[in-house]
C-alpha cells in the first residue's frame, strides 16, 4: 500500500482517501451542498434537510442543525447556506474532537475495544496496534473474543503483522480470564499498552453486556484506574441504530471514546453528528479500508469538510 506514514498526521487523510476512492459526487466530499452561495431561504432549508437525512444525520439532529443555522443566519443575514452549515457542524464536532492520549503514568495503559458484531473491532485493534507500535510504544493484544470462530487467529495475524505479542486462550474461554492473563503478562514484560479485543455483541443482549461488565471489573481489580480507555467501535455505514448502540454501551460500560469505521464507502457517517449532540463522547479515530495504515485521528475540521464540502465554494 503506497501510503506515506508521514502524511497521516496532517489533514490529508480524507483528501488522500478522496484521491484513492473518489467516485466523483458519490463520495463523502461530494459537496453535500452544491448550494454554492445560496442564502438560507426555505427552499435551501428543504434541500439541506434532505441532504442531511441522506447522510444519516437523523431527524432530530437535522432539525437541530437547521435551527442553529437559522439562528446564525439571523445574526449574520445573507451568509451563504453552505458556510452556515459548515460553521454549525464544525462547532458541534469540535466539542468531541479529543485525540486519545496514552498516559505514561499508567503502565500498562489498558484499552478495551467493544461494539456490536461486524463493526470492525478486530481490524481496528490490529490497526491501532500497528499505529501505537510505530509511535514507539510496546504493545500487547488480548484476544478476548473467544466466541466468534477464528477471531483469535484473525487477531494473531494482525499481531504478527504489527510485530506485537497476542495473549489468547482456547475458543470458548472466559474473556475476563484472557484479559487478566494479558494484564499479568504485560506487567511482567513491562509493556506500555494492552489492547483487548472483545466479541461483538448487540447492545440489547443483556447477558452479553453483563459479560463485558465482568471483563471491566476484572481489569479494574488488576488496576483500579483501568481500563484507561473504553473504546466503542461504530460502523460508519450504519444508520440511526448507531446512536442506540452508543447510548446503551455508554450506560452499561461508560464509554470514553469512539472509533468510526468504514467511512470509505459512499456512507457519510452523519450519525456522528447525532451522537456528538446527544452524548458528547470524544471521537478518537476514523478508520477506512483494510490495511494497517487506514486509521487516523479524528479531526473535526476534516470530517466536516468531507461532509459538507469546502465551504462557500
Amino acid at each position, binding site marked *: 500500500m503506497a501510503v506515506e506514514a508521514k502524511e497521516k498526521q496532517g489533514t490529508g487523510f480524507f483528501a488522500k482517501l478522496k484521491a484513492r*476512492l473518489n*467516485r466523483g459526487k*458519490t*463520495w463523502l466530499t461530494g459537496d453535500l451542498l452544491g448550494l454554492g452561495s445560496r442564502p438560507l431561504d426555505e427552499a435551501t432549508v428543504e434541500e439541506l434537510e*434532505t441532504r442531511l*437525512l*441522506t*447522510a*444519516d444525520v*437523523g*431527524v*432530530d439532529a437535522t432539525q437541530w442543525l437547521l435551527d442553529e443555522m437559522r439562528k446564525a443566519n439571523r445574526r449574520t443575514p445573507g451568509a451563504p447556506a453552505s458556510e452556515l452549515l459548515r460553521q454549525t457542524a464544525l462547532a458541534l464536532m469540535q466539542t468531541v474532537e479529543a485525540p486519545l492520549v496514552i498516559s505514561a503514568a499508567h503502565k500498562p495503559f489498558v484499552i478495551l475495544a467493544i461494539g*456490536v*458484531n*461486524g*463493526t*470492525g473491532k478486530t*481490524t481496528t485493534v*490490529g490497526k491501532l496496534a500497528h499505529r501505537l507500535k510505530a509511535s514507539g510504544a510496546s504493545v500487547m493484544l488480548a484476544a478476548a473474543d473467544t*466466541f*466468534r*470462530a*477464528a*477471531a483469535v*487467529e*484473525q487477531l*494473531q*495475524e*494482525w499481531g504478527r503483522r504489527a510485530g506485537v505479542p497476542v495473549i489468547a486462550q482456547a*475458543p470458548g474461554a472466559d474473556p475476563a480470564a484472557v484479559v487478566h492473563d494479558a494484564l499479568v503478562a504485560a506487567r511482567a514484560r513491562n509493556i506500555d499498552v494492552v489492547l483487548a479485543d472483545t466479541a461483538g455483541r*448487540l*447492545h*440489547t*443482549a443483556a447477558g452479553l453486556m453483563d459479560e463485558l461488565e465482568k471483563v471491566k471489573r476484572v481489569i479494574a481489580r488488576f488496576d483500579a484506574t483501568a481500563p484507561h480507555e473504553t473504546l466503542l467501535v461504530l*460502523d460508519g*455505514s*450504519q*444508520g*440511526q*441504530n*448507531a446512536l*442506540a448502540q452508543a447510548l446503551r454501551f455508554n450506560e452499561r460500560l461508560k464509554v470514553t471514546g469512539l472509533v468510526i469505521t*468504514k467511512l*470509505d*464507502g*459512499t*456512507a*457519510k457517517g*452523519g*450519525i456522528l453528528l447525532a451522537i456528538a449532540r446527544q452524548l458528547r463522547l470524544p471521537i478518537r479515530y476514523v478508520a477506512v479500508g*483494510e490495511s494497517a495504515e487506514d486509521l487516523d485521528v479524528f479531526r473535526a475540521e476534516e470530517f466536516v469538510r468531507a461532509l459538507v464540502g469546502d465551504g462557500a465554494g
Partner: protein
Amino acid sequence: MFDQLTARLTEAIQRVTGKGRITEDNVRDTVRTIRMALLEADVAVPVAKAFVDRVRDRALGEEVVRSLNPGQAFVKIVHDELVTVLGGEASPLAPRGQPGVIMLVGLQGAGKTTTAGKLARHLTERGGAVLLVSTDVYRPAAREQLATLAADLGVGFFKTDSNDPATIATEALASAQRGGQRWLILDTAGRLHVDTEMMAEARELHRLVEPSETLFVVDSMAGQDAVNSARAFHEALPLTGVILTKTDGDARGGVALSVREVTGLPIKLVGTGEKVDALEAFVPERFASRILGMGDVVGLVEQVQQSVNREEMERVAGKLKEGKRLSLEDYREQLRQLVNMGGIGQLLDKLPGVKPEQLAAASAKIDPKQFRRQIGIIDSMTPAERRQPSLIDGSRKRRIAAGAGLPVQEVSRLLKQHEQLTKTMKQLTKRGGMQRLLGAMRGGGGGGGPPPFRGRR
C-alpha cells in the same frame, strides 16, 4: 360519559355526512409523521418519500371508520401497504444443477460468513448435503472462521492451498460435482460497492460458478447508503434475493424496505441471533410494524375495526338524522360498542402522546364496569319500557333495579342521562343547522376524536 357518548354519535353522523374521509388536509400531519418514522428507521430518503406519497394518493377519499381519525386510519393503510411491498413472492431456495451454488455477497461486516454457516445448517436439515467454501483471501483468518463453523456443524469445507479466489471457486465447484453434494455455498470477501476491482472479482466468480442463488447479505442496522450498495451489487451481479442479518437487535430495519423497493428482490431469510440455528423465514407483518414503529396504532385500528358494528352505528346515525327519538335500545347498543372496544383506557393506552395522568383521568371517568351496569339495567326493562321510557314510574324503577341488582338511584340516573341525550339531539335537529353545530362542538372540544397523531421520541 355523556359527553363521550354524544361525541361518538356526532362522529357517526359526521361519517355519514361524508366527513370521515381521508383528504389531503386531514392526513397532512400524519403523512409527515410517517415519513419521519420511516427515516428514523433508516429507510432511504427518496424511498420513504415515494412510498408515503404513493400510499397517500391511493388512500385519498377512502372512508374512515368512526372512532378513528383519518390519520390513524392512514397509518393502518400505510402498514398494510408495507406488508404488501415487503412480502412479494419469496420462493424457497432451489438448486439448479448439481450442485446448486449459493453465492453470498455484501459489504464488510454484514455477516456473510456467519450466515454461510447458518445457511449450511438450514439446508442440511432440509436434506441436502452441503459443501462450504470461502474465497475471502483478504481478511485475516476469514477462511479459518468458516472452516471452524463447518467443523462444528459437521458440514464439508473445501480446503485448498490456492490464494486465488477464482481458482478456489472453480476447484470447489469441481469438488462438489464429484462429491455429489446438493449445495455449494460460496462465501465471498466483504467488498465496497465502489471498489471497482473487487466488484469485477465478484462478477468473475459469479461467471465461473453460475449460482442458482446470489444472495445479498445486508446488516439490518445499515444506514442511508445501503440503497446505493444494494443497487450497485444488483447491477454488477444478477442477485436473486436478500438476507437480512442481526435482526435480534433494536434496529428498526428500514433497509428492508429500501432494498426491496430499489432491487425488487425478495427478502429470503433473516438472521435472528448469534447461534447457528438463528436463521428464519422473513415475516413481512412483523417487519412492517417494526419499521413503522407504530405497532400500537395499527393494533388500535384493528381493534376498533373489529369491535365496531358498522351497520348498527349507521342505523342509529340515520335515525338521528331523520329527527327520530333515540330509544333505550339504541342507547344500550351504543354502550355495548363502547364496552366492546375494551374500555377507553385501553384504547387511549395505545395512542402515542397520551400522558399517564390523562389516561388515569379518562379511565376514571369512563369505566367499562359502569357501562355494563347500565346495560344490565336496560336488560331488566320490558321492550315497551325501552321504547317508551316515560312509562317507567316508581314501582317499575324498583322492579328494574331489583332485576339488575342495583340501587334505584342508578336506574334514575340512567333515565336522566338518556333524557338529556334525547333533548340535545332534538335541539340539534330542530335548529336544522346540525352541520354548524357539529362544527361548533368539534371546535369546542366536544369531539371525541383522539389528539392528532405526533411521532414519539
